């Protein structure tokens, strides 16, 4: 299938085809120096195909040839994905660096998996078994996981295992099984398979209701706005409010098997931080490097815009693949606004009729379809695998009334809205405790949480009133409420992401600290003057802050706890 370029406009190329073409299939625009630029068919009109080019189009000319392929834009799935750093199209960046140096040269592509590495395969099925798509044939160890080698997800109906290799060491290209369908056709199986990124990968008995809390070890999230395994959440916030830091600490500390980070159209520096940090960090739950449970998809803002659009799908597909093994996977997309902007750019070049703020009319349905790729699945053999998706949103001007934020809010299960007021006052994480919401259940008893929500709302009202009537015009009772709300904010909701201890709080510690905080809040401080109340709260805040910085069960920890207990016993008199 061949064609010729007739127009070039930014990342959009129009080609005239000689014969048929498949929508969303891959095409290569061939520059006169022979460089082949990867592109995807995104519209077909008569004999003309519109292609989005995943590279800079500099140097392309009218009449340059285009070579089309049958297959849609796909990724390769198999052992060796974990710990990798890919660009938006699954080219491994470290290998590109050793091949072409400092810069990403257009037209240089490398397969996502290493073809000559050998893996120790152990069969779990046996010859003669009947299997279907997604069933496990055997496993290979991949870092800390048992990587399941599965029947290709594209397989339709039942198959009989005609041949299955014994335990041994194989590459991803070696045949390991031969399956025979009912109609007698054969299906050879290797340890790798391809899957088109824009098609959700979900082979399961049924989709389950996600209920199991995903502990991120960020107190305000786990306690107030919980996330569940298989759920979805979004983090909208203006620039500088701490979206990326929140995503990074989630990636580090979340209690989950695998994290896929899709850095989409964001700063290269932030990715570099993750690249350099993660291999050094030890996952306390496994004792191994964090990188062993991480895949990084990195399409930074300077990289070509079309590849940015593909990068979130690449991330989702790799995450879904590990969910098929019965693992719990978290996909962090940062930022979905950049992905939406990439759609807007392409849509503009296609001269489609624009919707609000020039975003395409299909923006909302694309966002919905993306988040719907999350979910908890009961797999063929009864195991459960989940995919949680958390996306940041970067609304223009920090105003949530814009299409991407609104389109996202409709489809997610939790909304962690970041507030500029809070970040300006260095109250991190700057998740707004009054505006945010979650539809999921968390680790703190709901009744207690309702009381805290009331306290925060009440305290906020009093604060607002106080700016009008002043401190002297506020009753002692109201004043105390406002200070207690501040106290909760200061010692529980705020967390220092750069302190080794305070950055991550386990569920048990959260529950324990929460109850202690509640004891202080319930304390009837015997005071006749506002000064006394303030003094008591200052002391309590100081005690709890120091306690938060002390490692669990250390002597320091016990010391501060003792002082807090004394404080409570003395009813705040100091």
């Amino acid at each position, binding site marked *: 299938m061949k064609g010729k370029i007739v127009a070039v406009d930014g990342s959009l190329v129009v080609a005239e085809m000689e014969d048929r073409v498949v929508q969303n299939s891959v095409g290569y625009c061939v520059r006169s120096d022979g460089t082949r630029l990867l592109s995807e068919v995104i519209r077909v009109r008569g004999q003309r195909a519109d292609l989005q080019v995943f590279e800079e189009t500099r140097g392309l000319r009218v009449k340059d040839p285009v070579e089309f392929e049958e297959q849609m834009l796909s990724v390769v799935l198999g052992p060796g994905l974990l710990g990798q750093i890919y660009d938006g199209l699954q080219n491994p960046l470290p290998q590109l660096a050793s091949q072409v140096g400092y810069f990403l040269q257009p037209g240089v592509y490398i397969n996502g998996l290493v073809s000559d590495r050998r893996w120790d395969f152990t069969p779990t099925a046996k010859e003669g078994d009947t299997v279907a798509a997604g069933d496990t044939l055997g496993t290979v160890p991949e870092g800390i996981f048992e990587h399941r080698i599965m029947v290709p997800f594209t397989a339709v109906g039942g198959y009989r295992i005609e041949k299955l290799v014994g335990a041994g060491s194989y590459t991803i290209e070696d045949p390991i099984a031969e399956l025979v369908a009912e109609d007698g056709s054969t299906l050879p199986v290797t340890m790798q398979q391809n899957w088109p990124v824009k098609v959700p990968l979900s082979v399961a008995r049924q989709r389950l209701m996600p209920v199991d809390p995903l502990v991120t070890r960020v107190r305000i999230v786990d306690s107030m706005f919980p996330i569940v395994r298989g759920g979805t959440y979004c983090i909208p916030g203006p620039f500088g409010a701490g979206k990326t830091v929140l995503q990074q600490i989630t990636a580090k500390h979340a209690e989950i098997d695998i994290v896929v980070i899709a850095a989409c159209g964001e700063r290269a520096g932030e990715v570099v*931080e993750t690249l350099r940090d993660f291999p050094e960090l030890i996952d306390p739950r496994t004792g191994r490097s964090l990188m062993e449970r991480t895949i990084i998809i990195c399409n930074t803002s300077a990289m070509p815009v079309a590849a940015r659009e593909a990068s979130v799908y690449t991330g989702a597909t790799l995450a879904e693949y590990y969910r098929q093994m019965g693992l719990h996977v978290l996909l962090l997309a940062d930022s979905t606004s950049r992905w939406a902007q990439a759609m807007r750019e392409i849509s*503009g070049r296609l001269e489609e009729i624009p919707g609000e703020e020039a975003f395409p009319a299909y923006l909302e349905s694309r966002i919905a379809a993306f988040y719907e790729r999350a979910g908890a699945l009961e797999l063929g053999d009864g195991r459960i695998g989940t995919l949680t998706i958390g996306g940041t949103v970067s609304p223009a001007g920090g105003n949530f009334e814009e299409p991407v934020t609104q389109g996202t809010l409709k489809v997610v299960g939790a909304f962690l809205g970041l507030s500029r007021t809070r970040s300006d006052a260095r109250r991190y994480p700057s998740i707004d405790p009054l505006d945010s919401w979650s539809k999921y259940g968390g680790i703190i008893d709901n009744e207690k949480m309702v009381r805290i929500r009331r306290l925060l709302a009440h305290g906020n009202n009093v604060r607002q009133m106080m*700016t009008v009537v002043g401190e002297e015009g506020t009753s002692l009772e109201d004043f105390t409420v406002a200070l207690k709300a501040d106290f909760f904010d200061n010692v529980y909701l705020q967390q220092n992401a750069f302190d080794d201890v305070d950055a991550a709080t386990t569920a048990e510690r959260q529950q324990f600290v929460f109850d202690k905080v509640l004891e202080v809040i319930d304390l009837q401080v015997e005071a006749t003057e506002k000064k006394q109340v303030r003094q008591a709260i200052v002391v309590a805040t100081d005690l709890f802050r120091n306690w938060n910085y002390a490692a669990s069960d250390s002597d320091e920890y016990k010391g501060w706890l003792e002082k807090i207990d004394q404080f409570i016993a003395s009813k705040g008199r100091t």
Partner: protein
Amino acid sequence: MRKYFDTIQRIAGNVVTVSADDVAYDHLATISSARGDSLAQVIRLEESLVSLQVFAGSQGVSNNDRVRFLHKPMQVPFSENLLGRVFDGSMRPRDGRGPVNGEPLDIGSPVVNPVRRRMPDEMVETGIPMIDIFNSLVESQKLPIFSVAGEPYNELLARVGLQANADIIILGGMGLRHDDYLKFRQTFEEGGVLGRAIMFVHTAADPVVECLLVPDLCLAVGEKFALQGKRVLVLLTDMTAFSDALKEIAIIMEQIPSNRGYPGDLYTQLARRYEKAVDFDEAGSMTLLACVTMPGDDVTHPVPDNTGYITEGQFYLRNGRIEPFGSLSRLKQQVNGKTRDDHRAIMDSCIQLYALCRESREKRDMGFEMSDWDRKLLRFGTMFEERIMDLSLNLPLFDALDRCWKILAECFDPAETGIRRAIIEKHWPVPLS
């Protein structure tokens, strides 16, 4: 081979459309008109029609003028001889000296592979406490200065340029007033840095489109020096003028505008420039400081807004001061943990207390009674503004930290600062009770 095309089909705004074959996207052409020769760049190919943006503008171009295609992208001759020189947005010397010869360098080079970037970890000390303590500048960082017309942003930029420890300084001026250009030149000359500086200056009097190339020229040259192991500081002013030029071209090309007339790819265009800031693995670095004037002092305007999402923080310059709120250096965490153990604590505590002071001021201004706590905060606020926020200060970091401790001790009890006990015990400048 010289090939001329005489069939200009359309002249609209600064875009000229000609029919021609065998022309590559993004490559250059020259248009010879009664006004002289001008460079032009291919910005769209459609069958045999080629749209060119004309850097000198289309005024005076006639439909039978000659267009010659150069069959190469925009290039800049690279050599050491660039140092000390001044050019305009089309690479013509502005200092009355002859052109520079050197190795031709394509502008708009490919993206740096993230795995070949280093984690930046070198602090750039500026002697300005509002930068050094609260928002440290880090080598390879890209930071904008958000400001409004009338503020001394160019002065600040020049001053950072003078004091920062960089091997090479590259200034890119876009829409610069001629006086400002002369002032930069004078400052650099007097500061003795002109010999290691290169200036690409587009003034407000020059054709608008010419300013589009200024950032690319600066960054291409800077990148090459960085690859040779140099530590480069690029100063750009004003990126809003650059964005407005982008807008102009996009509208003429009938692109659908996304927000206040700016093209949908504004973010991408800006990111491609800002992301050139880099710390190369086993080579030099390029740090980028850019002025962005905010029309109407509105940070939600598309230019500052998109910029804020790309850059690693921002400084707000208002009333001649770097605002403590909103100003942010995202990379400061990479460096301020290893300066001195109290650096972060001072940084957090002073800002939180200063925020509270602002609330107390509001209360006071509305005529409410001040509590003891309010009075403490007010006292702190005044001292902080006078002794720390002043932009004309030139203090080494440790002295500035000590000065903060002194102010805190003069105003508060240790527990009121919110600083953890261990740090207080070590640094509180007066004996603890």
